């Protein structure tokens, strides 16, 4: 069996190599890929869309429909994590820590009524004492990371960046919060419900802007029809504004999905304790 697999792998490799036989040279300016459409994009992207970064112009406008579904793929990932991992069952045993002394209480049957004072805190099974340095550094860093994330989203049409990258950076700032403190701190600040709504609303913002173009009498995603909706805009290309809108939607969706995936995986779907 293994030998058979080896032969199949070799054959596939040979096929791929055979296929490269007629490839254009590396970086050849006369290759079809750089002659057929690229020229159009490079020459006209700025005039057509008003986005100086023509990668963004291709991703968010010329082929914006693909990007909408790529965002939907991300959304599907978060949704699949929720569907498969989320565990609504009550947990049987709980751990409480007496905060002033550090004594740990293990309650085996959580159904039994338990009266403990306020000085007991609910904690993870494998809890470690917080480190002051890590906590402080992260607390200082997180807001800056988040501002940077928004910068990456907003500047997508001028410099490398955009919704996906910005969303990931924003999401990771919150994951940093969960790692430096604990998961409960994050879950307390960012409710599961909010994440669920944000994930759907982000993609919906993209699809909504696209559908709005349709309601304004254009084709789906044809941002140029949005002009009457922003009458105060005089010196920006309306397509660039449309792109900014969808990038923000992508950013929100990606941020929320990152967190949904992280929380569900580290807490095995229980949303209470984790890394």
């Amino acid at each position, binding site marked *: 069996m293994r030998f058979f697999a080896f032969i199949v792998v070799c054959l596939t490799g040979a096929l791929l190599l055979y296929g490269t036989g007629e490839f254009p040279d590396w970086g050849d300016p006369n290759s079809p890929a750089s002659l057929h459409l690229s020229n159009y994009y490079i020459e006209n992207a700025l005039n057509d869309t008003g986005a100086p970064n023509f990668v963004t112009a291709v991703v968010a406008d010329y082929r914006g429909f693909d990007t909408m*579904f790529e965002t939907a*793929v991300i959304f599907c990932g978060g949704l*699949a994590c929720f569907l498969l991992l989320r565990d609504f069952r009550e947990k049987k045993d709980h751990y409480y820590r007496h905060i002033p002394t550090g004594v740990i209480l293990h309650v085996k049957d959580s159904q039994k009524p338990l009266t403990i004072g306020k000085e007991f805190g609910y904690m993870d099974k494998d809890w470690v004492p917080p480190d002051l340095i890590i906590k402080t550094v992260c607390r200082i860093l997180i807001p800056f990371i988040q501002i940077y994330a928004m910068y990456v989203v907003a500047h997508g049409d001028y410099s490398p960046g955009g919704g996906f990258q910005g969303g990931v950076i924003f999401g990771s700032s919150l994951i940093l919060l969960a790692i430096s403190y604990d998961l409960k701190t994050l879950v307390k600040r960012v409710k599961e419900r909010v994440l669920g709504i944000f994930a*759907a609303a982000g993609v919906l913002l993209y699809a909504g802007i696209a559908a709005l173009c349709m309601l304004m009498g254009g084709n789906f995603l044809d941002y140029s029809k949005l002009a009457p909706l922003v009458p105060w805009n005089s010196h920006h290309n309306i397509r660039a504004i449309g792109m900014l809108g969808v990038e923000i939607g992508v950013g929100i969706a990606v941020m929320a999905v990152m967190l949904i995936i992280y929380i569900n995986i580290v807490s095995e779907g229980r949303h209470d304790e984790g890394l």
Partner: protein
Amino acid sequence: MDNYPALIVVAPFIAALFAGLFVWIDERLSYPIALAGLAVSLFSGIQVMIQVIASGPIQYKLAGWAPPIGIEYRIDLLNAMVLILVAGVAFLNLIASYRSVQQEISDRTGSYFTVYNLFVTGLLGVSITGDLFNLYVLIEITSLTSYAQIALGDKDRGPLASLNYVFIGVIGASFYLLGVGYLYMYTGSLNMADVAVLIKGSEGSSTVLTAFILCILGIWIKMALFPMHVWLPNAYTYSPTAFSRVVAPLMTKVMVYVMIRLMVTVFGYDYIFNTLHLSDAVVWLATLAVLAGGVMALAQKNLKKMLTYIIVCEIGYMVGGAWMGNQLGMTGAILHILNDALMTFALFLAVGNMVYRIEKVDITDLKGLFGKMPWTMGGFVLAALSIIGVPPTCGFFSKWYLILGAMEKGAYHFVAALVISSLICAVLFFKVFEICFFESGSPDHENSHGPVAIEDAPVSMIIISGLVSLSLVVTGFYSGTIVNTIILPFLK
């Protein structure tokens, strides 16, 4: 309204997102929203079909950019038929499956309807698009959502079946993507019609040949052509009822459509049959697929699993017909996309009804089912007859075209395989009928001769199941019309 083509895909997509939003606000609203999205999609599909029949293929420029620069939707008769089929089956199944979703996935129904609608969006997008890369993106959505839904099924076997599917499905999708990459290297374009023009005249190119092999292999893996079928039976057997009912009729058929689209629109008959001479080899492969599917179906003890092997067998029919290299064979293959989707849908609807009542559908569990669920069994019998290919039902007509095509080419081995597999299906189904009809369900002997209490599935499930089963006969009667108005004009 010029936006019907976009609405077909966008309506269920936006409905899915709203359904996902309402999971967190009021979960009961998710279901009607999802249903409304599919209804709009079905309506738009019918409108598009009317336009296409009246005035020829429709082009829809997404974002308003002309084709090679932007993405286009191009709808001809074949697309329009597949679109209506997908939207219709998904819509009816959502009505029929409401109760079984409540029964099987009770604590996360809203999210389930979201993922269901996204799956259907993916299938619709795959069938409508005229862009090779857009096709890949939507295959990705379809696959991701189906992995999630399969894993939600049987507690023990579902996740493992899904994992197997993930491994093989990812390989299939990356083969396709790699093929598209090679094509892009060679042409610099992603639009199907544009690529077709650009590769004309470069029949000897090794890059085009590799791209062709990779694309077709990827799609074959995705459609579970024997011997690449190993993921399918478990994945479809252990998924939730609501999902197995929609994936079994649609997923493989949409992939057959993609194969035909690549053959007809992108690479062209001339390249495949006159330059590469692939017809004989692939028809032999299809013959093997038909026989292997039939024989493996014989060995099954579980009804649902037996049906999944029949799907493997039917894939062989369609691939064989499409690669026959003549018009009759292709007609048979396209007609069989429609017919097989309906037949499989009817069978899985009936099986879903059984699962709703008796949970396990090993063939020995079906004793006395005619008495207990007469309506469901009626639908099942009709669908089974159609799979076997008994004349007034639609299954007969597509098989007829396939046999004619094979005769014209002289592929008698394929004809023999078709007949043998039909006989195997007859044996299989009559075995099931016998157990359901003659063997008594109740274990105690005193009551075994008395009347059995009728305990059929809920009305919504029976009505849909009955309607679809009757549609098999109706489609059978109108086979000539379908061939003359849709398939033959498309093939010209």
